[in-house]
């Protein structure tokens, strides 16, 4: 447990170091780079950037101070918006989290349902689900987004085309974000259920007169729950990164589209902050998933 947490902290430290150190890898003077690479920079402004990044200190000290600032919520000032980066994030995070939560609900519910359906029904249903999910993983989200906008937004007019706010606005983006995840989850569910179904204890349960429905729920699905929950967790963790494409495609204002704008406008403090946030969230969620595992599978308890 302690070892696991130290490992996670080490990973966090190294990744943040990579994100911080990236500015030094950029061609040219880090000051100009951090200031947005613009030409007409006043000496005062450059000095401010120097102070913000403690550029006159030794490299490792700079990193330490930057990390300390980041942990305490001071993420620097955006070169583009001239705002505190922390404020920018705080303003946009809710809509992104809402989108991720909406998509997570969609892919968990429908992904598991489809997987169970494919495993239980077999035959044509199974073939259709497998074919459908193979196709779904072959279409990049931004293409799905444009198709959904064309069809449901413009042609049929069921959903607003751009902008955000309501649940209604978020539906098409959430579907887009959920589609690939849904395909993965339904495949994992199907596979785990098929494997569980072959186990002896399921036959034993059948031989004790349990109805098929109860066998599927209490034994097959229960046994398959471990891999399903793990995968749901991992996919949800990766979704924050997925919002980059989806928010851009739907013109939503969240941290994903913030990252894209920051990069296209050379706003490195914002880029660093969003990356740091996404990577941290990803590592934390994947660690949580591992910690939840013993609750699902008692056999894993001994090892922790």
């Amino acid at each position: 447990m302690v070892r696991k947490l130290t490992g996670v902290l080490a990973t966090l430290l190294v990744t943040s170091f990579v994100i911080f150190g990236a500015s030094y890898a950029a061609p040219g003077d880090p000051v100009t780079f951090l200031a947005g690479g613009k030409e007409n920079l006043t000496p005062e402004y450059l000095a401010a950037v120097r102070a913000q990044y403690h550029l006159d200190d030794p490299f490792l000290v700079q990193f330490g101070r930057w990390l300390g600032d980041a942990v305490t919520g001071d993420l620097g000032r955006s070169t583009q918006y001239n705002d505190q980066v922390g404020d920018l994030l705080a303003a946009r995070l809710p809509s992104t989290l809402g989108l991720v939560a909406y998509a997570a609900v969609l892919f968990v519910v429908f992904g598991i349902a489809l997987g169970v359906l494919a495993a239980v029904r077999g035959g044509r249903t199974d073939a259709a689900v497998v074919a459908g999910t193979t196709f779904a993983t072959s279409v990049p989200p931004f293409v799905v987004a444009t198709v959904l906008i064309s069809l449901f937004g413009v042609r049929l007019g069921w959903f607003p085309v751009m902008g955000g706010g309501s649940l209604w606005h978020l539906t098409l983006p959430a579907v887009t974000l959920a589609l690939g995840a849904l395909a993965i989850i339904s495949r994992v569910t199907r596979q785990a259920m098929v494997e569980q179904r072959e186990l002896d204890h399921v036959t034993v349960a059948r031989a004790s007169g349990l109805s098929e429905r109860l066998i599927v729920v209490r034994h097959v699905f229960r046994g398959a729950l471990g891999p399903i929950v793990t995968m749901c967790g991992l996919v949800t963790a990766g979704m924050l990164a997925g919002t980059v494409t989806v928010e851009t495609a739907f013109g939503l204002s969240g941290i994903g589209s913030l990252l894209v704008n920051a990069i296209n406008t050379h706003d490195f403090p914002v880029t660093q902050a969003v990356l740091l946030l996404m990577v941290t969230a990803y590592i934390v969620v994947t660690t949580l998933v591992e910690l939840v595992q013993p609750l699902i599978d008692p056999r894993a308890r001994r090892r922790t």
Partner: protein
Amino acid sequence: MTAVATLSPRPVRPLGYLLAAAFLALVVVGAVCAPLVTPFEPDAVDFGASLAPVSPEHLLGADQSGRDLLTRILYGARTSLVGPLLLLAIASALGVALGTLAAWHRGWVDAVVSRVTDVMYAFPGLLFVVLILAVFGNGMTTAVIALGLAYAPTIAKYTRSVALAECGKPYIDAYRVQGMGGLAICVRHLVPNMGRSIVGYLVVLFGEGLMSLATLSFLGFGAQPPSSDWGLMVKEGQPAIVQGAFLPVLVPGAAIALVVVSFNVIGVRLADRMGVRGI
């Protein structure tokens, strides 16, 4: 959408495989012979034909600037297919070397390779690539190199597992006993023997690489105008959706989807045949 309609579940039936192969061959031939196939230039602006529908003249319609979509798709296939090819070349050169080295040396080399891999895997999705692009600036070259770097650990991991299995075979020991050097054994015997399963794996990765690269172009990080990269075409066609013209996004979108599906269908079959593991 014929290739989609016949898409069959695993095990992939030969019909799907043949259709996929035929479709890819068509795309490649079209891309190579683009100037012979279409009378238009990919960048030829013709505002008279702005958002033209499907017609004998513009078989797949035209975009906002009246550029012929079929022409742009065919020329765009060049970037859209060569890009993933290059990034896989970079990734596999690095990945195979590192993976083989890790499996051959074990010990600290292995540990270092797997630590580096862990750090890169801590960045979800394309974020590692995005970081590189943020530092070195947007553009197709940077995008391809960055993706190549990002894919290297995946290939290294796979190569390592294949190489470990291969190193356990007696013939490697036999060469060692004969006094052959480690490098010579790796380059002349180990890598060629792993070739089949690595190539199978690369075919499976190709579709993913194409999607990633197209996504970067769509975000504006990859190909820059006036390129007719498919991802960029979708980005540029997006404003036309609101005007009710779907062709500028649907045509490149469908091209990406169909090519990726085709590669996946072929990849799965090749993977089965060549004994690619863990997919």
